[in-house]
């Protein structure tokens, strides 16, 4: 078990900087998820922790001790690769055993460890098979077993579920969460899938262009996004962002507010304008019926936004009032940073359909 700390870590490939002054604290025993669009540096960060990439600047520490100079094998970390990276010429047993053999673990102990681990991941019947004869899910388990058998202080996982089909992915997700609970070891998990991040992590680190946008618990990211990027990254469909000047119903003395955001699932649709929030007269342009929910594409005098509803589907072309309570509105400045304007709520005045709804 170990805590990992990244201090002012930078990574350059040639003259291109992919990671700039990254500071990250990974709690001992946490399930930390690094998430972001491709090319955001999340995999590079993971590979630097593993020792597969050298840091250009800064320091990586494990339990307070710098580990920059250590080769990957000496860092006491195990990694699960995106395409598993199983040794194709070795059997499942040899795959799991390879790391132990290199560590000169005695044969008896090796056998015991392999039995123990294969029972956990349910691979007993496949020990003498080659990886090429296994299904994707089974290969995934071999990769996990190979990592687990070394009893590492930290598990590193680089998009381990992205090669599985949707059903198996959901199942492995649950299994990984249970595995984390059982082992209690630090997990650092890289994904580009926000659903995976939200459902698995107890801490989410959202990255973009080599910088951390926000690092906190899943619900806090959802409820308190730090900036436009995180607000748009988490949630399906993403948060609606509209320039403040395009909403005549919203008046504010705060000149710093440039963008206003609200989540599609927080919108209430009604036939009458409602009080105590922002009310936008709008028309349903399009709808996606998903069974338990419906996503509406709405338009208010040329400005599109999305609404998610769980009620019976409404007809296209209907003219309605979209109501968003004050507490569900988010405000961003010109740079996209979120602004806390809680105490200034009275400062906001809403005019709906020419009628002042709120003083």
């Amino acid at each position, binding site marked *: 078990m170990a805590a990992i700390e990244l201090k002012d870590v930078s990574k350059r490939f040639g003259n291109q900087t992919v990671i700039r002054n990254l500071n990250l604290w990974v709690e001992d025993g946490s399930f930390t998820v690094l998430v972001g669009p491709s090319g955001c540096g999340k995999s590079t960060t993971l590979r630097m922790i593993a*020792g597969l990439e050298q840091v250009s600047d800064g320091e990586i520490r494990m339990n307070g001790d710098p580990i920059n100079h250590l080769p990957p*094998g000496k860092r006491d970390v195990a990694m699960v690769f995106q395409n598993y990276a199983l040794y194709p*010429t070795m059997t499942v047993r040899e795959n799991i055993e*390879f*790391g132990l053999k290199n560590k000169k673990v005695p044969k008896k102990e090796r056998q015991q460890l392999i039995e123990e681990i294969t029972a956990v991941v349910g691979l007993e019947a496949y020990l003498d098979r080659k990886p090429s004869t296994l299904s994707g899910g089974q290969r995934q388990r071999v990769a996990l077993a190979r990592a687990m058998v070394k009893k590492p202080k930290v598990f590193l996982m680089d998009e381990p579920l992205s090669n599985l089909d949707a059903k198996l992915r959901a199942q492995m997700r649950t299994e990984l969460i249970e595995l984390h609970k059982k082992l209690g070891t630090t997990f650092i998990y890289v994904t580009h899938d926000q659903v995976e991040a939200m459902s698995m992590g107890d801490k989410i680190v959202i990255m973009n262009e080599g910088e951390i946008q926000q690092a906190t618990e899943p619900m806090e990211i959802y409820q308190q996004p730090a900036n436009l990027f995180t607000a748009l990254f988490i949630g399906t469909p993403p948060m609606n962002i509209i320039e403040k000047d395009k909403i005549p119903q919203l008046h504010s003395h705060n000149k710093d507010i440039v963008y206003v955001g609200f989540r599609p699932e927080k919108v209430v649709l009604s036939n009458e304008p409602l009080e105590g929030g922002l009310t936008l007269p709008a028309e349903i342009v399009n709808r996606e019926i998903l069974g338990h929910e419906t996503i509406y594409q709405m338009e208010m005098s040329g400005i599109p936004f999305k609404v998610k509803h769980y009620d019976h589907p409404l007809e296209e072309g209907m003219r309605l009032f979209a109501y968003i309570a004050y507490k569900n509105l988010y405000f961003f400045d010109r740079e996209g940073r979120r602004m806390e304007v809680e105490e200034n709520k009275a400062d906001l005045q809403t005019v709906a359909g020419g009628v002042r709804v709120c003083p």
Partner: protein
Amino acid sequence: MSLNTLRPYLMVAPSLIIFLLFFIYPIFYMIYLSFTSWNLISPDKTFVGVANYVELFQSQDFRQVFFNTVIYTVLTVFLSLTVALLLALWLNKSSAIYGIVQGAIFSPYIISLVSVSLLWMWMMDPQYGLLNWVLNLFHLPPSPWLTHTDTALLSLVVVGVWKIVGYNALVFIAGLQSIPKDLYEAAALDEASQWATFARITLPMLSPTLFFLLVVNTIASFQVFDTVQIMTQGGPVNSTNMLVYYIYEYGFDFFKIGYASAAGVVLLVIVGVMTVFHFRFMAKRVHYR
């Protein structure tokens, strides 16, 4: 038969005729000739049964030629594969200088062996040759190279290895580059030593390449001719005479066509067996994913 059913046969006829005329017919004609006594000129071909084969297998010369060929093949294949693998491991990097070196070691493969054989003869000259001059430079005893029965076959091996090693190295490099990088990363995380990484990952992953080269090189070496013809004519004292040159000698120097054909059939069988082995192996080639 209507034109429509005939058409496909007409379409393939040209290539089929060429194939039968220039590939199949000569083989059967050679097998036929191996049962005759003929001097290439006279109109009569006397049928002699298996007499040519009996003479062949009783011949002390043929036995020596056969063993020469085997020794030459084993040495050439072993050395060229080992050296090529070492070169490939060293050259498996993407930088301009390594590209140039790769090209340089590949060039012998595309140069005519006949002209290069003359260069090697000059370099291997015991008195004025470059190689003995180099040996002398390091205070090593000079070698008689092609002029002595002990060293002549080895000298041909040197040329044979030099010729093929660049090709082998190139194929090995291609093989090395097809090994996924993440296997090496996984091995690094598994704390594998350099030797363990090579023995347990690189070499097994390279085995299809290795076996391909092994078979192709063996078949090619078994049919060595140019260097023998140009550099030694089988001498001194038959020490460098090998199968194909032996056949050529009997056919076109001694005009014993029947006897040469019998030797040709033996070569055909040996190479045929190796080819079958090759195809069998290719079918079983390790495939991952």
